[in-house]
């Protein structure tokens, strides 16, 4: 009886000490103050105002945590890749690959989209628009077997055991224990970081629009063709799908990449799989042309290696499909006119965002 009593007492003490240890283990993060401050950002006046995100406002510590997570390979199963592996800031948060390879070496089915100005894209993310928000988008690559190929519970476990992240989650979101580090908070932080990746308004185009510089004649003629500004110059019909100020219509189009006799003919159904509407098959998001010079190869499958190839495609009118956009037709641009459009496209390059240290890797 006495022995049983001693055993029970020891068990009680053990459980008690476990609880005590748990409290103590989180006491260190509780010692860190949670006092969120708004992240100071002035979005370019040339662009629309971003819609507020009430359940995930930008804070200094949230953005900072998101920045660390974005560049940290801790999110991948073998610690070899991070978000930045496919979204490299040096090339406008893209990767210059037709099909990026994940941690297992398997190629993905589509190219990586630039993340520049993603804060403005409210009609679905990815080439097919399957994620409604940045928070939802950020959940996907971690568990995708052809991307980071890691399970979120493992990521959460790694983050909880990490010497630094619990304190950063505390500062960003006010967690009171390591157990409160979740994938939901992780993607909120990543989304906050992505919402500060903004640029393009210091490109030659916007400088010319502001009257700060002159275009050369190729750039000006290219602009005329792009926007159909001059009645006597052939209309390039570019600005319908690549509309200012973000140089994207933020919508999905069939731009005549592949021949299709009917909606079942498309090898990649694109937006059709998301909307469930037959006529949306073979449609993909029109990407922004800001920094297009940096983000080769082009199209959702990277089939065009150069801007010259892209221009050739559009000038030809592309291939027939029942939902090919009516503004994709044989433009009859001359070789010189095509070069002028490319000169204009290169005037959309702006890498001044790289001077923002909050955007670059902390590692």
């Amino acid at each position, binding site marked *: 009886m006495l022995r049983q009593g001693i055993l029970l007492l020891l068990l009680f003490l053990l459980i008690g000490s476990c609880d005590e240890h748990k409290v103590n283990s989180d006491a260190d993060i509780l010692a860190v103050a949670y006092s969120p401050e708004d992240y100071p950002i002035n979005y370019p*006046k*040339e*662009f*629309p*105002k*971003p*819609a507020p995100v009430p359940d995930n406002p930008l804070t200094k510590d949230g953005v900072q945590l998101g920045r660390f997570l974005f560049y940290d390979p801790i999110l991948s199963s073998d610690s070899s890749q991070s978000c930045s592996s496919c979204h490299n800031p040096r090339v406008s948060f893209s990767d210059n690959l037709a099909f990026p390879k994940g941690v297992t070496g398997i190629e993905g089915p589509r190219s990586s989209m630039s993340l520049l100005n993603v*804060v*403005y894209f*409210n009609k679905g993310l990815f080439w097919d628009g399957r994620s409604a928000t940045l928070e939802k988008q950020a959940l996907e690559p971690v568990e995708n077997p052809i991307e980071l190929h890691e399970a979120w519970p493992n990521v959460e476990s790694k983050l909880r055991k990490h010497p630094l992240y619990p304190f950063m989650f505390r500062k960003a979101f006010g967690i009171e224990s390591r157990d409160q580090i979740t994938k939901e908070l992780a993607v909120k932080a990543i989304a906050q970081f992505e919402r500060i990746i903004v640029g393009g308004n210091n490109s030659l185009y916007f400088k010319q629009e502001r009257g700060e510089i002159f275009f050369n004649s190729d750039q000006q003629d290219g602009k005329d063709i792009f*926007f*159909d*500004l001059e*009645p006597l110059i052939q209309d390039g*019909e570019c*600005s*319908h*799908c690549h*509309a*200012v*100020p*973000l*140089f*994207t*219509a*933020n*919508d999905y189009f069939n731009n005549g990449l592949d021949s299709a006799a009917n909606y079942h003919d498309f090898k990649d159904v694109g937006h059709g799989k998301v*909307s469930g*509407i*037959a*006529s949306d098959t073979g449609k993909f998001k029109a990407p922004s042309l800001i920094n297009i010079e940096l983000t080769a190869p082009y199209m959702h499958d990277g089939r065009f290696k150069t801007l010259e190839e892209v221009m050739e495609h559009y000038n030809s009118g592309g291939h*027939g499909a*029942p*939902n*090919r*956009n*009516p*503004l*994709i*037709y044989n433009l009859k641009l001359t070789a010189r006119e095509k070069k002028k459009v490319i000169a204009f496209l290169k005037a959309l390059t702006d890498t001044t965002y790289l001077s923002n240290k909050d955007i670059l890797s902390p590692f």
Partner: protein
Amino acid sequence: MNFKSVELKTIALFLNIALFTVVFFPSCNNNNGGDAAQEGKLAVIFKAKYDGQTMVLNKTYKYFDQSDITFTRSEFFMTDLMVLDQNSQQKTISNTNFVNFTEKNKTEASAEQGISYEFTLPVGTYKNLGFHIGLPPSLNSMQPSDFTVGSPLAEGTNYWAGWKSYIFSKFEGTIKNQNFNDAFGYHSGFDEAYRTVQFTNNFDIKANETTTLVIEFDHKPMFGNNVDYFDIYSQLVFHDTKGGYMARFMDLMSKSFSIK
């Protein structure tokens, strides 16, 4: 002042207060209740048609020359939805709306529902419902950066940067006969494309009830009539004022609405 007179005065005061209470407070209640009861709802539903049939995107219809025509895009800005009240006073009940059949009319069921807007109005008889197609010049002089993401006015796709104008309407589709199979795109913009649509039907708003008006927008008469219609094959695209196509199209478009 003796006790009796004080007592009488007190009783008189009490009676006055009681009378005031009986008369005034119920009348207040009546007023408040009356204000609430003096309002009703107006539902305005836009339905896209083609030759009287429900227009569904990608569904084939017959053009004037018996070509097969389909629509892949149909959308326009509708501004200043207005009514005239009993005193012929103009009331604007909604400022700017983007009537987006491109999203709504992907399926037959959804297309038949139409795009619905609901407003609260004082009870009474109204007449002359109307609206504008496009944006008034003061709004058309603005640009997407003046608006917040989520507004159709913030969308670059609804704006012509080169010409500093919003795109008022977009209609796209395909047209096919034995010899040709083409896609067409008719877009309008500029202040010159601004048009007014007006109906003279009277309608009543009744207390706590919803009056529903269905506005049918038939896409066929937008292209002309059996005698004089757009030769789409020879004019597959327009998005400027060249050739007068846009002005003619907008005139026809403004006459393609009917109220039920």
